[in-house]
């Protein structure tokens, strides 16, 4: 089975973020980046499916030069080769434009399965994989907690609210987004890290993929961030004082007056 895993480089979850001068995105210099945590699970799932049979895992990422780091991590962890969409024309896109570019790159691989993380930790939009499926003409399932190979394709258990699961059968090829907790991602082994430098990493541009640069990146986007702001600091709440009984009475009064719940 040939599996594509889409991965994204995102700011470290504990990076100190600041909004940039034109309020359109964060200041991305001086902070550390990491492989989107959701994507680690997608990669692990791809490696497990491959190891259970045979095939190839191809990691694909759209992002600036620094994003090569997350592809190297994928190669070190066990992916066989990587495609990095680092051309300037691809950058600054919305989910639609990014899906356009990713779809073009993925078509060159002709995969049986495309795995993505459920969402990216930076914008948490969770739209790109679904758009990607539509553009590739493949069925999709989101939030997978279990993926099983069947005679006709794959059976996916999707996570719903309150610990419920929805089980769907999909023919292949298909796009599936993977929820955290589906597996326990492995560490990049020392030997894997050393072998990674001998693995292929392609960096095709729009012309190589036969796409019009105006359809990808910032030029191809329909969605724009125009006013990003840090949420205002919450005012310090009211501290009730007195005996336990007095506090309880005061609390009930406020709940009744302010919320209408009681």
């Amino acid at each position, binding site marked *: 089975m040939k599996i594509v895993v889409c991965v994204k480089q995102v700011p*470290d979850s504990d990076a100190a973020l600041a909004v940039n001068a034109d309020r359109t995105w964060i200041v991305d210099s001086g902070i550390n980046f990491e492989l989107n945590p959701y994507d680690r699970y997608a990669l692990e799932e791809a490696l497990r499916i491959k190891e259970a049979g045979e095939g190839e895992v191809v990691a694909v990422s759209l992002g600036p030069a620094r994003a090569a780091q997350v592809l190297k991590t994928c190669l070190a962890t066990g992916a066989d080769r990587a495609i990095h969409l680092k051309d300037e024309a691809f950058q600054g896109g919305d989910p639609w434009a990014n899906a356009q570019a990713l779809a073009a790159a993925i078509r060159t691989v002709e995969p049986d399965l495309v795995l993505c993380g459920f969402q990216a930790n930076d914008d948490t939009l969770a739209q790109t994989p679904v758009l990607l499926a539509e553009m590739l003409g493949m069925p999709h399932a989101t939030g997978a907690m279990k993926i099983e190979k069947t005679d006709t394709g794959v059976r996916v258990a999707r996570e719903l609210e309150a610990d419920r699961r929805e089980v769907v059968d999909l023919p292949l090829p298909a796009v599936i987004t993977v929820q955290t907790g589906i597996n326990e991602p492995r560490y990049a082994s020392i030997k894997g*890290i050393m072998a990674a430098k001998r693995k292929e990493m392609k960096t095709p541009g729009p012309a190589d993929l036969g796409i019009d640069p105006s359809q990808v990146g910032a030029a191809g986007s329909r969605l724009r961030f125009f006013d990003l702001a840090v949420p205002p600091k919450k005012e310090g709440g009211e501290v009730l004082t007195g005996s336990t009984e007095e506090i309880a009475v005061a609390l009930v009064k406020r709940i009744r007056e302010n919320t209408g719940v009681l």
Partner: protein
Amino acid sequence: MAYKGADFYLSDELFTEEEILIRDSVRQFVTDQIMPIIAKHNREGTFPAHLVPGLGELGLLGASLEGYGCAGVSATAYGLMMVELERGDSGIRSFVSVQGALCMYPIYRFGSEEQKQHYLPDMAKGEAIGSFGLTEADFGSNPGGMRTRAEKTAGGYLLNGSKSWITNGTIADVSIIWAKLDGVIRGFLVDKGTKGFSAQDIKGKFSLRASVTSELLLENVEVPETALLPGTEGLKSALSCLNQARYGVAWGAIGAAQAVFDEAVRYAQGRVQFGRPIAGFQLQQAKMAEMLTEITKAQLLCARLGRLKEAGKATPAMVSLAKRNNVAMALDAARTARDILGAVGIMDEYQTFRHMCNLESVKTYEGTHDIHTLILGQAITGLDAFE
């Protein structure tokens, strides 16, 4: 906040991308697998044996050797691995040092091809554990005086004697026993369960509590011809293993120092006395400034030593200088950090006291601080203060 080791002089820029990736992978392993369980093992005095397959899978066992299932990393990458492991616990780092530098290395360097094929792949996977039997109860800094003897017999060798302070002794599948054969120190591979060979743990340790330390007893132990490591010849063979291990210790100590520094700084920033964080008080700032200065110096020392080792230019005396400096530095840092932590500094809910106790052993093993002083004295003057 995820752990990030202090790196004031951007020493990461001295390492290759591959070395950083290796470091990061080990750091993640330590954060996920060691940090949550180490205090309990330290308290109970148990070795977390369940970690061994994971250490093997990650490629940490015998990582600097080439072939036989080993990764063949640069000396610098090996050092960075030791830093991260010792950030977790000196006992875990000791396990990895003994397995790789003291057992796999001598088999690799002095063993026959059959011995290498037989032992190294399993040891790299963590499916076989090794111990290194050089020190004896009466011969610590002076191992050349050892009493353990080997005699040639018709089918092999007869070993008699005892060893002490042996890391991994009771859990080892194979022990490298150094013994005098016709007055010359040679290494022998003794498998677990060989008749007359026994081990028991040394109890009552205040230090390296998450590591196994044992005594080995050899009473008329018969081993075949194939047990002799053919390339071993005299004490220098054993010392060459120690030199590998000391190199790792010099790096590892940085990790322990980074761990206690990190804990002390976080604590000082959060601990409020007299209406403000104690991190704002000059006495505490002086302590933290001193710690960071010494950690930074130790990092640069090792970064240079690593490249010298890769170029084949690192002398044993250079390794001694780094081991001596860095371990003493880490112990001082741990004592200072404990001061900053105040009362909670004595609790095992915090790491500092554990590191402080561990480092007392690290200062003593692999050549005591004083012995390394004398090795440097010899290198400076050409005159031996010992022997």
